């Protein structure tokens, strides 16, 4: 588009063809570029300032054995950097020394991954025991991989040169590093070797430039612009052709025009090019600026919204991407994460099963179960071992505050819950210093030495620690993990039946389960394994895989101790939100890494799916590929058959089956995806989540992905709209997302209120922008028919420019405050969102309406002007002013008619602009050198001028108003009906019956949703209940709600497909 304007502006410099002063295009063009350039320059300047600040920050670096202060930008790879407490780490460092004797230090990584807990970083074993002075002279080699953006991995090794201790290869992991932008905490000083600097740091590498997202509305506007451009070309060719003909036949006779007999070679081109310039205003130059402006305002409205402010975490909503608010109103699919998104991610230990005995079933809280308390008091060995695993097998760091209270810093909420629960059962983790762990049980302190930590990975789904009990020198392997990761490791012959049942039962209740196991290791077994483990952990390639394999060798023959069940509560308002959004016609898919049963239970709890007989779950699973395929086909068949029935069908698929399907049976699955409104995908990996988003996008659906954790980042970036919940799993998701909100329930408001309004406003604004440009352009074309098709312009350059960038742009900008329905009405009737989803307000047919209107208005203005100002009055300047003011009058009325609500600002803008038009033109009319000197005064003194204006307004607006009224009253759309209902509520629903009924129903539903989630009706229709005579409660969830009103309007393709398939 910019190129187009530039081309036009260049053409205008050719004075032979330019119809008006080049300023009329150059002015706005320069203005527009100036605005965006200023904005970018400002950003750049700020970036420059912060860069400068970061680059010139003073840091201590060892140079030639002496500590020196240098600027951060002078740090080179290999420099030894000293940091003090609370310093920001300037680049990626490998830790080689700290003030702490154990060689650890604490860092806060919030800026990197959003996790607020302190993390420990340890110095590599090779460097342990070096005195600070020695660090100045240390020499060695660090082998590290090429820079990448994985902030959880650093597979490197280090070898120190003599005289420093040994020259063995020493493995380095992420735990030995200090990454850029972290802060050093609780540690006096630390010292490290720079390994990555500048943009090669982990942070720098992960700062990729996200692909700009284009909204459906923008795409449509582009399409319309293209259409207008084609139209323009056609007009130019036709007019240019006839202009040339007229010139050769008529103009040669018009002696006063003095056409030369022989023209230059380009003569044939001149008239078409003149028309090209004359018509160039068809594509409104102001639309870009206007849209940018209103879009940033939509984003601001989201930032400012009080109702989307989360009090608990003190986070307001934030729109990081200001350009895609309209898409929010057109969402068709929401893909949501479960943990932390639907649930609070605040884990509470609820139940457990220890060696066959279940605790906490009656009270729902094991910590209050007397039996368990008794068992602990009686020192039942199994229970104690269970508690020990709970306490030790984790990566939790206890922090003792000055008052002596112990708080835990945990990366995993589950571990936090387990440690806290164990503490409540008198097994308190009190210290973790380097490799020793102190546990206080009933007053006696037990020490353990950590030998190895077999870390959790999402592939292994379990973690283990190897510890040495300091009392009896026994080496223990403590494991915890998902049931399917632990049960296979049980020693042969153990009765795990009860545990399997317990897991099943807990999953049914929507609890998260972890299985705990342990094994005593023999010394020689451990020694042997430990050697392999060390080797694997220094591997430079495939370290993760090698480690997993080694771990496998140790984790077997476990004695299963028991099962823990942790509750992850649903967030406030999740069921309501999902229900409302489903009523709005949005399809939900749940993508979770959790177990199938847990996922299904949560889905039931939050209205995701309805229980039998309303809903039906179709499982796609199987042990082999064939089985998976067969079950996929079966499900597909069922879907096709039942698609006409009003039944909530949902399919459930797990990660493994999904992998098979996505690899080989993509087409069948795509069909299934289109048919199904609901899906639960469990055990899926982050990349599978992204693949699913991609799949839906490829079917031309608008997708919104919402999640809170690092594993959702890819799906969030992939989706048309990414929403991040700034939750407990850090800010990673919120960072990557286009919108970040505090709670899932804000999604309702984000979509229904902000998304919908944004869509409506942009739809109006963009079409109006085209309309007003077309009006003035049609007038020019009409005029050219009366001026010998020679391409002369009726309007002078100043008026044209002012018309485009000022008179017609300012009033319409206030459409950002326009509300067709109140927020409350929209929330009550979420179905109304359909109009946005199907693109009802901005599509070729609505645009055709605006196009027709502009043609009509141009005819009205032009014909009335030339007839009222015929004969002795048809002076050029006057006539052009009459036509221009006619346009302004019509614009004011059109904007007024199309707006739905008028705040003071709208009145100011519309009528103020109207007045400003006259004031400005009167002022310009006082300048003698201006073309329109005294014109405005002359016109204002003529009664016929005012009569003409009123006539133009009446003729222009009368039919528009009449048609609108007719459609509004007799062919009303749902929006109109709701508008009427809303504004005449006092009359129709007198005595507030509606309100009270609404409330009672609401309460009803609310209580239902809390107490008996399974019995509740999935749909309630408050207005329907109060108004329709025979309120049949029927699920409209899956039945198509029929929006076709025969004469009303067309449907977009996406909707008709949707309908057909439902």
């Amino acid at each position, binding site marked *: 588009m910019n190129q187009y304007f530039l081309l036009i502006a260049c053409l205008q410099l050719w004075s032979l063809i330019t119809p008006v002063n080049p300023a009329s295009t150059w002015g706005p063009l320069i203005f527009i570029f100036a605005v965006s350039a200023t904005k970018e320059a400002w950003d750049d300047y700020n970036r420059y300032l912060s860069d400068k600040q970061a680059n010139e920050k003073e840091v201590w670096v060892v140079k030639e054995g002496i500590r020196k202060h240098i600027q951060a930008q002078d740090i080179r790879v290999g420099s030894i950097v000293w940091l003090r407490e609370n310093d920001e780490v300037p680049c990626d460092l490998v830790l080689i020394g700290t003030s702490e004797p154990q060689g650890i230090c604490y860092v806060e990584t919030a800026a990197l991954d959003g996790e607020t807990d302190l993390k420990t970083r340890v110095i590599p074993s090779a460097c342990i025991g070096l005195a600070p002075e020695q660090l100045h002279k240390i020499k060695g080699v660090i082998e590290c991989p090429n820079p990448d953006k994985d902030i959880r991995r650093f597979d490197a090794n280090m070898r120190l040169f003599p005289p420093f201790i040994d020259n063995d290869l020493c493995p380095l992991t992420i735990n030995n590093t200090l990454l850029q932008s972290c802060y050093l905490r609780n540690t006096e000083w630390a010292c490290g070797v720079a390994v990555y600097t500048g943009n090669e740091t982990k942070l720098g590498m992960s700062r990729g430039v996200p692909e700009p997202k284009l909204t459906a509305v923008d795409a449509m506007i582009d399409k319309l612009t293209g259409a207008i451009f084609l139209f323009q070309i056609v007009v130019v060719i036709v007019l240019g052709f006839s202009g040339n003909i007229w010139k050769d036949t008529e103009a040669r006779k018009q002696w006063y025009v003095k056409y030369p007999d022989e023209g230059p070679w380009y003569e044939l081109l001149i008239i078409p090019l003149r028309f090209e310039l004359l018509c160039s205003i068809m594509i409104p130059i102001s639309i870009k600026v206007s849209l940018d402006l209103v879009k940033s305002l939509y984003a601001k409205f989201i930032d400012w919204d009080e109702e989307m402010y989360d009090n608990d975490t003190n986070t307001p909503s934030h729109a990081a991407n200001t350009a895609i608010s309209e898409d929010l109103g057109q969402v068709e699919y929401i893909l949501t994460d479960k943990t932390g998104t639907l649930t609070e991610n605040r884990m509470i230990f609820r139940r457990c099963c220890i060696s066959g005995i279940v605790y906490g079933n009656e009270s729902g809280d094991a910590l209050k179960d007397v039996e368990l308390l008794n068992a602990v008091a009686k020192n039942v060995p199994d229970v104690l071992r269970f508690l020990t695993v709970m306490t030790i097998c984790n990566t939790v760091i206890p922090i003792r505050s000055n008052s002596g209270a112990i708080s835990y810093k945990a990366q995993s909420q589950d571990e936090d819950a387990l440690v806290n629960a164990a503490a409540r059962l008198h097994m308190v983790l009190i210290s973790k210093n380097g490799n020793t762990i102190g546990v206080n049980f009933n007053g006696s302190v037990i020490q353990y030495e950590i030998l190895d930590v077999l870390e959790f990975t999402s592939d292994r789904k379990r973690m283990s620690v190897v510890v040495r009990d300091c009392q009896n020198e026994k080496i223990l392997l403590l494991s915890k993990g998902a049931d399917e990761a632990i049960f296979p490791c049980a020693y042969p012959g153990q009765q795990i039946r009860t545990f399997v049942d317990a897991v099943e039962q807990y999953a049914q209740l929507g609890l998260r389960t972890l299985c705990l196991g342990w094994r005593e290791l023999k010394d020689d077994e451990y020694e042997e394994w430990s050697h392999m483990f060390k080797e694997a952990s220094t591997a430079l390639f495939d370290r993760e895989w090698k480690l997993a394999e080694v771990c496998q060798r140790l984790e077997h023959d476990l004695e299963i101790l028991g099962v823990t069940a942790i509750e992850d509560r649903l967030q406030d308002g999740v069921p309501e939100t999902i229900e409302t959004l489903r009523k709005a016609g949005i399809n939900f898919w749940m993508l979770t890494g959790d177990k199938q049963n847990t996922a299904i239970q949560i889905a039931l709890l939050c209205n995701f799916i309805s229980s039998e007989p309303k809903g039906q779950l179709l499982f796609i699973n199987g042990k082999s590929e064939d089985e998976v395929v067969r079950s996929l086909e079966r499900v597909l068949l069922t879907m096709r058959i039942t698609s006409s029935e009003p039944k909530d069908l949902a399919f459930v698929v797990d990660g493994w089956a999904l992998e098979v399907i996505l690899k080989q049976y993509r087409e069948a699955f795509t069909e299934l995806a289109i048919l199904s409104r609901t899906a639960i995908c469990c055990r899926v990996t982050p990349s599978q989540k992204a693949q699913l988003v991609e799949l839906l996008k490829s079917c031309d659906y608008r997708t919104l992905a919402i999640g809170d954790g690092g594993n959702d980042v890819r799906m969030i970036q992939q989706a048309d709209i990414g929403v991040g919940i700034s939750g407990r799993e850090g800010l990673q998701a919120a960072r990557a997302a286009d919108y970040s909100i505090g709670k899932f329930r804000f999604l309702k408001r984000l979509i229904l209120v902000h998304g919908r309004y944004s869509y409506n406003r942009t739809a109006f604004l963009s079409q109006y922008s085209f309309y007003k440009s077309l009006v003035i352009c049609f007038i020019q074309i009409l005029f050219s028919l009366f001026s010998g098709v020679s391409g002369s312009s009726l309007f002078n350059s100043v008026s044209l420019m002012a018309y485009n960038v000022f008179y017609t742009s300012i009033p319409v900008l206030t459409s950002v405050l326009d509300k067709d329905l109140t927020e409350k009405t929209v929330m009550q009737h979420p179905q109304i969102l359909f109009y946005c989803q199907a693109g009802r307000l901005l599509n070729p047919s609505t645009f055709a309406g605006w196009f027709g209107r502009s043609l009509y208005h141009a005819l009205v203005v032009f014909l009335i002007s030339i007839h009222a100002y015929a004969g002795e009055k048809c002076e050029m300047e006057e006539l052009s002013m009459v036509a221009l003011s006619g346009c302004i009058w019509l614009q004011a009325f059109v904007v007024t008619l199309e707006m739905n609500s008028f705040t003071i600002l709208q009145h100011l803008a519309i009528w103020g602009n109207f007045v400003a038009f006259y004031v400005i033109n009167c002022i310009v009319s006082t300048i003698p050198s201006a073309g329109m000197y005294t014109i405005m005064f002359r016109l204002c003194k003529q009664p016929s001028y005012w009569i003409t204006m009123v006539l133009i307004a009446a003729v222009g607006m*009368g039919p528009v108003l009449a048609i609108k009224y007719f459609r509004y009253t007799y062919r009303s759309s749902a929006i109109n009906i709701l508008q009427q209902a809303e504004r005449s509520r006092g009359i129709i629903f007198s005595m507030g019956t509606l309100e009270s009924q609404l409330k009672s129903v609401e309460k009803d539903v609310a209580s239902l949703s809390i107490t008996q989630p399974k019995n509740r009706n999935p749909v309630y229709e408050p207005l329907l209940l109060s108004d329709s005579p025979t309120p049949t409660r029927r699920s409209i969830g899956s039945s198509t709600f029929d929006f076709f009103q025969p004469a009303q309007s067309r449907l977009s393709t996406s909707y008709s497909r949707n309908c057909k398939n439902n």
Partner: protein
Amino acid sequence: MNSKGASTSGGDGTRDSSAPRRNSKKPKYSKFTQQELPACKPILTPAWIITSFALVGLVFVPIGLASLSASEQVVEIVDRYDIDCIPEQFQKNQLAYIQNSETNKTCTRNLIVPKKMNSPVYVYYQLDNFYQNHRRYVKSRSDKQLRSTAYEQVTDSCKPEDKANGSAIVPCGLIAWSLFNDTYKFSLDSKVLEVNKKNIAWKSDQDHKFGSDVYPKNFQSGELIGGAKLNASIPLSEQEDLIVWMRTAALPTFRKLYGKIEVDLELNDKITVVIQNNYNTYGFGGKKKLVLSTTTWIGGKNDFLGVAYLTVGGMCLFLAICFVLLYVFKPRTLGDPSYLSWNRNAAGHPS
């Protein structure tokens, strides 16, 4: 649902304000940021629409009548003379006649006053099919040159009529070059009827657009003579015919003021006009007309506004009546939620 959400957040809000948290990132409340500015939301109720259409109709009809009667009061004499002023022998070859400087161009026309004409009676000449708005033509002038002697040489925009014999033409350009040069001499009952040619141009043009120190120079001295010649001793600001002519018309049919007759003309007065038929409209099939007209508040004779007003007023009244009838015979409750398609559907209509 919404009310619940609102009430909880409201409650939080009060708690928050009673114990203000440090560093609260809560957005500041204002009606603008919350999009809660008080707004009036008019809807198109039948009452509104019918009233406004009726009102418009009722206002438009009288205005239309007034305009029409004003236009009717204007007395206008239009006389086309371009054909009749050519002698018989030249009818076949009009162009030769008009381009020949030797032929006698004098032509006498008689006009009968159909109605009493009150002074001032404006004398116009009307040209048809003359494209003063043609792009080549309309741009071919130099406003700077007209304004001041200092810019005498600024003639770039005047092509192809910018220079003659190597020096700048003042006033330059096609417009000035093609200045209308027919003249009219009026007499009533063989008594000369004075035509006042002063103050026929806009005062503002005389004062600011045409310099009082700019004198015609080198004008119509080229090989092709377009139109009238100018008296080189009179400054441009006094050349009112030129000033009038240079206010280009926007339409191919236009009238320009020739002068004013400042006596009343009585009914059936016989006016004799002696026309010097110099201007060439024959080359392009244009018409020349002489117009005598009075004016009223609405201007010259123009029925368009009156007729348009009456039509629009009538249409509005008609529409108002239609809407009333529609409202009476096919009433429809506004905002009845049972019209909502999803409600209708749920109430038992199969989809």
